[in-house]
């Protein structure tokens, strides 16, 4: 399973005015990997689907504020 959050560390200069906020994250949700959706994928119940924003767990890629993470730079699973 691909991870849905990636990290990279930009160059830090001793001349930078602010303390570095590194590493930096970006999101790589499931639609980048799935290809044409196969038939018969497992489904949520109607209530669960509404709560998740999709009918298929395999298409669900949740998001949380990366600035609130205690340990930055850890990949997250979608």
């Amino acid at each position, binding site marked *: 399973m691909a991870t849905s959050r990636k990290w990279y560390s930009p160059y830090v200069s001793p001349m930078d005015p602010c303390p570095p906020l590194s590493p930096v994250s970006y*999101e790589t949700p*499931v*639609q980048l990997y799935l290809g044409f959706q196969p038939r018969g994928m497992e489904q949520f119940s109607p209530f669960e689907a509404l709560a998740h*924003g999709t009918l298929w767990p395999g298409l*669900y*890629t*949740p998001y949380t504020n990366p600035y609130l993470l205690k340990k930055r730079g850890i990949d997250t699973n979608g």
Partner: protein
Amino acid sequence: MWYYEKKLQYPVRVGICNPKMAKFLIEQYGGADGELAAALRYLNQRYTIPSRVMGLLNDIGTEEFAHLEMIATMVYKLTKDATPEQLKEAGLGEHYVDHGKSVYYHNAAGQKFDMPIQSKGDPIADLYEDIAAEEKARSTYQWIINISDDPLINDSLGFLREREIIHSQRFREAVELLKEEQNKKKVF
């Protein structure tokens, strides 16, 4: 033609009386990558897209109006009971002077909705535009979630962000359908 249904697509709850959130949320109402721009783009492109994917553009365009209504509901609930003083503190003073408590089509920086709605008339160019638009809208939802202090608003924004993912997935499938390689590759 269209029929209105007197219900939201997803229950919208606003937990904190913080009109400042309205200023951020308005980006998805009248911003370049907002729900209105998306709805207008897909419903316009559908006329000249190949028949195989006309239905998809029609249906995603229609769903975008349901999302527009959810955003408007959040903005409305956050501003309807705010005093002019509270609006001023929230950075909505200029908005109030010009538009009162209207839910106005402009972006978070106050620029009115006045932008080209992309349509190239080339199916691949248009669908790639649409995929990019969904990814940009997904990013906007992430930036608003990062700046928001209201878990209930973030719940609705999480739903809307996931819808961008699904729409992007379907547009990617539409490209595959137009490539006409689907059945040959036996990926079904």
